[in-house]
């Protein structure tokens, strides 16, 4: 479904260019849980941002269902149509309620019913009117999951979604995530393999190479 070929990325570092990774290729099939593992600074986030069109690679090609998406300017529309996002920080909008935050995911359709259902399934049924600052860290991240899922995206991109949570909560969050997106694929970066489900494809990013 999502196919990345020969991605390379380097950053300007003073006067030299520093290579982050090169010739990275990766395929995400429907229903896959792909984990990108690697130490901090190895370029996991950069790779995830490139796969999800948030950033452009120096070279290489990404296609979604055989449509090339790496050379278009309309990345917003691609993300809106196909992707859901979860980051290490919850990035909930502080002045909106939990429900409004989830509904903010879709600017075309008011998905009130789906949002409420989803929040209930995620155990937040009693909190939908609360504002993010009234929730615990794990609860906030669950709201972020609901926001990513409410539009029923094809792929969820999660960048260290549990890094700011304690081990137990982290495990629960991953469980909830996998449980509620049966149809969607997940691409998840993490430096902590312990949280990953058993049935996932693991890709290691080390020294600028992606090893499957």
């Amino acid at each position: 479904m999502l196919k990345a070929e020969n991605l390379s990325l380097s950053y300007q570092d003073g006067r030299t260019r520093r290579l982050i990774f090169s010739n990275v290729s990766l395929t995400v099939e429907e229903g896959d849980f792909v984990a990108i593992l690697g130490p901090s600074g190895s370029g996991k986030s950069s790779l995830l941002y490139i796969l999800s069109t948030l950033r452009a690679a120096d070279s290489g090609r990404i296609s979604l269902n055989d449509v090339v998406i790496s050379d278009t300017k309309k990345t917003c529309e691609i993300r809106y149509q196909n992707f859901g996002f979860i980051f290490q920080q919850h990035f909930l909008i502080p002045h909106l309620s939990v429900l409004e935050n989830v509904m903010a995911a879709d600017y075309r359709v008011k998905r009130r019913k789906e949002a409420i259902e989803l929040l209930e399934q995620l155990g937040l049924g009693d909190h939908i009117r609360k504002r993010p600052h009234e929730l615990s860290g794990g609860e906030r991240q669950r709201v972020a999951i609901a926001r990513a899922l409410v539009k029923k995206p094809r792929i969820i991109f999660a960048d260290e979604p549990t890094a700011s949570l304690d081990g137990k909560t982290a495990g629960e969050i991953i469980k909830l995530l996998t449980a509620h997106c049966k149809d969607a694929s997940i691409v998840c970066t993490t430096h902590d393999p312990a949280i990953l489900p058993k049935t996932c494809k693991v890709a290691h990013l080390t020294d600028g190479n992606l090893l499957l």
Partner: protein
Amino acid sequence: MKYYLANKSKGISILFVAFLSIFCVYIVSALVSSMLETARDANVNAVTSFSFVMPQDSALTISEEDWTEIENMPEVRAVYQAFIESSYIDTILAKANSFVVFLGEDDLNRLFQDNRYEIIEGRLPVDGAYEVIMHERILRNKGLQVGDFFGSDYDDGESVVGGYQIVGSFRGDDVISFGTDNCQVDQYQDIGVDADTTKYAGVVLPQGALEEMNQVLDHVDSESISFQTRSDIQRQYDEQIQGINLLMAFVILIVAVSISIAIGAVLSTVYQSRMDEYGILFAIGYRKRMIFASISKEILLLLLISWILGIGASVLALGGVNQAIFSKMGQSIALLNANSFLYTGLAIAAMFVITLLPIIRKFAKTDLITIIERR
């Protein structure tokens, strides 16, 4: 908008500043409009049923030749021999001209009949006495009553020479005052000028519609006489108020710009602090343009609320002032006047543009993804 509901102090401070500026602009423009309206009433509306003919600047009287020529125009029904002086009326900010026309008693009676003026108090002036009758609005504006005296003998600020008793007030289309015997004319007579034959000025009455006659009069090209028609006076009036309007626009611009800079400073910190919000929205598929539109809408809504509140408060305040002061002076303030709406609208537009510009610039330059990456 929910942002400002959640952060009330920010919303209220922006609303309050914008509200104050709208309030100021509305009050100032309403006062100026009122002044202009009162001035217009006494100037332009003085000649609603007739026009004046006067000698050109250098001459003191109108020649028999010219007089006959005017009388013989097909559009002119009659020309009444007159002496015209200027009095004043008070407006909120300045004095404006108001004509006093001295006619023979018979002519005056005829004029009142023809134009269906309604005498609401007293009577018409008669020959042989220094008397005037005033339009009710002029009388009220001057704070005088029937029976009072008027003229430079009684009021240092009065440009009508001598002293006259006000013997009546009338209601009618022409906002003007009439008298019979004139102090100055009588002085000239004392030094040998024949008052009956000397034509100082004339009231020109139309055969048909006033506009038709005025069109002809406006095109008379004479070196010895000039006509004062409604359109003439309107033009003079327009020229005079141009400066005032310009000044007002300038003041409003200054107010709007300085307030805008203040609001702009608050708003840019507000939107700077909300970059996280825009970063995540952009990441999940909102286009920058949409985010920007929602920011604009939010600011516009704030300003519109201030606009409505500002107008509401201004109308209340002006209504109070009007009742307490101006209505007693025969001046009125149009509480809801087009000028005030226009000027406050311009102020709002200026605030909108000026506050939004730096935000647009900042926004255009910001890479929204970086905001998320950095965490």
